[in-house]
């Protein structure tokens, strides 16, 4: 590996090697590539890394939490003397296994589920520390007001989906269980444990009503979706805001992520069993609903739902569809009152799943750092050309069961890059 390391340095060239940057692989402790790939992606999401390092600087002797372990890990990478190498995230993995029993084994885990858990958990830690440090007045912020709680206002399928998702972080079933409701509409993953839903037609200012102040996790990852429902009887439009930490999109063959996101916001008609309870009509009515992005997050994490539950096989099948993702992205599916609809995103990291199914295979990640693209495969780091990204779009044919496909995309807003 030493040879490998120096080779990377040689490839990049000493004069081009970004100052104060370290490219360190993460040692695999037995199927921990799901964690390694996500951690690398997060490490190269600059705002996130900075906040974690800042946390480390502020909390000299913290009680050991997953966040403190993460901070130690990031700090350790960032302060290495060598430019490249590898490091063993032993403490982090140990802590992770303590925190969540689903991860306490040597099985392959779902990288998105891990990301989901990690972000929510970090957020909870921050809130908990804030509360313990200050008055516990903000206690409500940790009390989950889950989507299901507020859902009665809009009892419909999409809400059911989202609420089931929001619970998914506590359940062993993977988020892919949404796969079976695979219509053209993507489902929303509400990762925010803090009350993903507010009362209907709540102005944006009150969105976080339950939370006193957003944490830096909110600032980085949180966006707001607004779901607009138009009752087909009285034509009243009600809208409801929901926070999200990432968007889960269904994938179609030979499409772009742009298209998948547009589908995500396609209008859906609520009828038959899914009728909408209209407050105006005071009854269940057919309605049209669509979800659009109202506040665009600083880092937009897109989860491609590549593991679909297929009933006939009674298991999850990997969908290797070719879904292209550009290096630059704007959203088309923003709401009319969106705060920052023109936000321009740059692709900064991709977690890639290699293999044929959710519980086997391998995760790697590619990240962009100072204009270079790097591939992190556990403890190995390689420089790649941007043109090789197209190898991770997926397959146009299903003949090959195994594929290396983009699974989680991290887009970072350009206005925060500087």
């Amino acid at each position, binding site marked *: 590996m030493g040879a490998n390391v120096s080779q990377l340095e040689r490839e990049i060239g000493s004069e081009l090697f970004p100052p104060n940057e370290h490219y360190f692989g993460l040692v695999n402790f037995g199927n921990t590539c799901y964690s390694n790939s996500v951690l690398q992606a997060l490490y190269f999401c600059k705002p996130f890394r900075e906040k974690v390092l800042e946390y480390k600087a502020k909390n000299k002797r913290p009680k050991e939490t997953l966040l403190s372990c993460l901070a130690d890990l990031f700090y350790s990478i960032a302060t290495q003397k060598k430019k490249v190498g590898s490091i063993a995230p032993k403490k982090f993995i140990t802590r992770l296994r303590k925190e969540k029993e689903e991860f306490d084994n040597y099985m392959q885990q779902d990288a998105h589920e891990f990301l989901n858990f990690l972000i929510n958990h970090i957020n909870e830690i921050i809130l908990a520390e804030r509360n313990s440090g200050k008055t516990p007045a903000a206690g409500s912020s940790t009390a989950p007001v889950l989507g299901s709680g507020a859902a009665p206002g809009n009892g419909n399928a999409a809400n059911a989906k989202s609420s089931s998702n929001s619970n998914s972080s506590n359940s062993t079933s993977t988020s892919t269980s949404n796969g079976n409701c695979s219509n053209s509409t993507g489902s929303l993953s509400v990762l925010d444990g803090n009350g993903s839903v507010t009362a209907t037609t709540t102005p944006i200012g009150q969105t976080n009503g339950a939370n006193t102040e957003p944490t830096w996790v909110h600032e980085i990852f949180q966006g707001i979706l607004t779901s607009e429902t138009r009752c087909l009887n009285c034509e009243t439009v009600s809208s409801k805001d929901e926070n999200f930490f990432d968007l889960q999109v269904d994938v179609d063959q*030979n499409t772009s992520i742009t298209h998948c996101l547009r589908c995500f916001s396609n209008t859906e008609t609520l009828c038959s069993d899914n009728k909408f309870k209209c407050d105006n009509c005071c009854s269940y009515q057919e309605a049209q609903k669509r979800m659009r992005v109202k506040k665009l997050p600083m880092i937009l994490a897109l989860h491609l739902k590549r593991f679909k539950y297929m009933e006939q096989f009674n298991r999850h099948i990997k969908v290797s569809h*070719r879904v292209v993702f550009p290096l630059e*992205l704007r959203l088309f599916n923003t709401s009319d009152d969106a705060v920052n609809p023109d936000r321009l995103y740059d692709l900064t990291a991709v977690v890639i799943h290699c293999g044929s199914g959710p519980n086997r295979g391998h995760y790697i990640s590619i990240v962009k750092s100072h204009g270079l693209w790097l591939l992190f495969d556990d403890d190995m780091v390689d420089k790649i050309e941007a043109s090789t990204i197209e190898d991770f779009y997926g397959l146009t044919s*299903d003949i090959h069961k195994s594929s290396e496909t983009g699974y989680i995309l991290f887009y970072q807003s350009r206005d925060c890059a500087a």
Partner: protein
Amino acid sequence: MANQLDANVKDDLKTQFVTREGTYRLLTLSEYSRPNRVGYSNNQSSPQVRVSFVTLPNPSSKNNSEANVAAPQTAAGTPTTSTSSDKRTQLNSNGATSTTTTTPATPTTTATTTTGTLNGGGAGGDSNYNGGSSSTVDARLGGGISMHSMTNGGVLDQNGLPTNQIYGGDRICFNFGRDLYVYAFRGVKKGTEMSKPIDKKFYKGTNPSCHDFNANAATPSGAPLLVGFTTGQIQLVSPQQGPRELRKLFNEERLIDKTKVTCLKWLPNSPHLFLASHASGHLYLYNEELPCAATAPSYQPFKVGDGYTILTCKSKSTRNPLYKWVFSTDNCCINELCFSPCGSNLALVSQDGFLRVFHYDTMELLGIARSYFGGFLCVCWSPDGKYIVVGGEDDLVTVWSLHERRVVARGQGHRSWVSVVAFDPYTTSYTNWDGGDFSDDENQLNEYTASREDRFSGDSTANGGFEGFDKNSTPLHTNRTRTHSASFRSDASSAALAPDKLAISYRLGSVSQDTQICLWDITEDVLRHPLTMRQRVNSTQLNDSSFLNGGIDADGIKVMRPVAMGQPSNFADSSSCSPIRETAGGGVAGATEHSNSSSSKFSTANCTISSQSSNANTPPDESCDTETATPAAAAAANTTSSSKANSRSHGNSNSIKFPNCISATKSDSIDSSGPRVSNSNYSTSGYNSKNSNSSTKSNSNAGSSSSSFSAFNSLTQRLTNFSFLSNSDKRSSSIGYEGSGSTATNHRQHRKAMSMLKSYNQHNHSNHSNNNRSSNNNSSSTSIAHSTAVESGSGAAIGSSATAHSFGSLKLSKSSHNSSLATAGQSSASVSSYDPMKLIGTPACPRFEECPLLEPLICKKIAHERLTALIFREDCFLTACQDGFIYTWARPGHSTHVAQHMSPSQTTPTGGTVI
């Protein structure tokens, strides 16, 4: 499993579809692919399958054609008895030779002078002509790659003629993986002879990535074919009489560029020159007659433009590359380049998301556009050269107007990246413009009843680049005149002249990685549509602030660069672009007159609006600006500047000027007779700037606001516009009456205000440096309202403020513009910024809701793999797919060959071929 997942898509491939002109049908027997089809092969990461097409002169007219095209004689290296020693020397020197038996016995005729021009390396290889069957050649190309070539030479067809001696007709070339095939394209009447490719080449160590036939040097037996490779080399294969060919290699040792060749294009009207773009983002001009020296080229600057630099080789003798273009943005790998039909303008689209349009001869940048996001992948000019369509990674088809320098429409319909866009010149409708247009006719195109024979019978030699429209079409339109389409006058006699013709509806096709083809109709009413005024207020404000922040954060350069894209000011200045002017400018001439008249009608009112419209379509004329318009321009400049000054309180000089400008304003209004004044106004408001310093770069901003108005040709629209006169008046900037501050009210300008502010400095500088030209550019510089401009215009020339200066110099140093070159460059235009964050909301990249959104006429899934080529022909169109299949689709009324395809000649492929 696989089937399950795809069950819903397997069977829905379309083999025909209907548009209003009829039914397009897939001709299953006119399908081109590799001769020996195998099952699935993974070509996913191979280079895009591209298709090149050429129509060879007919043998019957052979003499004529050769006389006309002197090129082939030299280009194709018609066998001459030059010394064979050249050849030998070369072989010896490279030592590599081929993998097969070297055959010094190669007829001496092959060693033409052209071979001699190759520099020593492993070029060319040698050919081994096996007289009996197809000739195969192995050749080693530079850089460890080799070629195995099989020309279907010796095979005799039923008539006893060598099959490769098919004279005339069409040739189709496509690449697949490491292979390259050339077939005779047999059109819709006959099926494909898949087993008889004219030529096929297999490369080792590299893949062909692009290719282009030289139509100018075509002979009845073939046309020179350029092939570019993923490893950077470029091969030129020239047909000769007989089954042999001449090959040359450029960049064979990869000394010029190591990256993939992304696009190759012969220069129009030039038999020897071609452009090659590489993934590195550089563009090179080669002369196929010149050698590539054995040393890496060392370059010296030749011209510095706004965001681009042109280099030339520093060497005693002229060598390849003749020129090298370097662009300032990151990742600007040029994905495609395309010459306008008149041949004078060049459009480039690149991975950085920019469309750049150059006047080729002067190498001046005429304008830019930015994708909504992601790279632009493909580009195509409208048949009349007035519009450019680009497609890219934003899944959109974007229409850009050359005259207005703005994005006029976007099309949304694809589900993935748009890989090819192409205008269908045969379905584009034209009419005459009589100037008296009241049309807002959306219906005019509703029917397309004309029989195609009528429409396409004409030959369109009159219009250089575009073939296919027909004089007869005009009368057809006439017949269809409706209540509101008074504008379409039938004037068959004048119809032949391009300038009198205006396209009223363009047919556009696009194919995408989503495996679908979309057809679009772009009608005049869309193209004339102003930028939408409706805005998200919130977003605007927010944006503003974000701009502000961005600007602050950014480094000096960003700060300096104003927003918008450049509007070319002196488009016409250089006058070089004659063809385009003829078509374009000429085409608009009618409109201009018209607008004049209208302006006179409304002269009592401030005529800025109407005149603007005329201006918008007519490139600002230098003389006009200088002579007639100078005072006005100055006045306008003053006003603008003052208004700006007010709103921005930009410095002393401005405040000083203020009084002047008021007076100027007055004079302006007095003077305002007609278009000239308006001209100045026009430029003032919008179209900015231009001037540029030699760089030229100057530019300015403004543009967007005015652009929204600029486009109106139809009186109705203008009238409508009039109704919002007050509003528009403000915008027009200038505003002679309103003078100060009015500009600020314009929200669009407002948005840009930040950048404008910044642009002042830049402008200052540019004006300053170009003092001598400043009068000419008055109007343009005024657009920016820059104080300096005012000064120069009025002759005061007080000099720009110190700040402006320092900024200017900063800019200079930063972008290394050579001001000494400034004079060389005519002002072109001006790009103010290449920062997409600043371009959003400008004419180069309107916000999504600001721009008319087209929906496809049809959108059909026609393949399982991504589509990679689309070529419109008179009786059919072709699509290519990444799986290596090229499909022919008959136009309505042309799908007759089904009955014919079984003719013996096709079904009896002779043996002989090929693997």
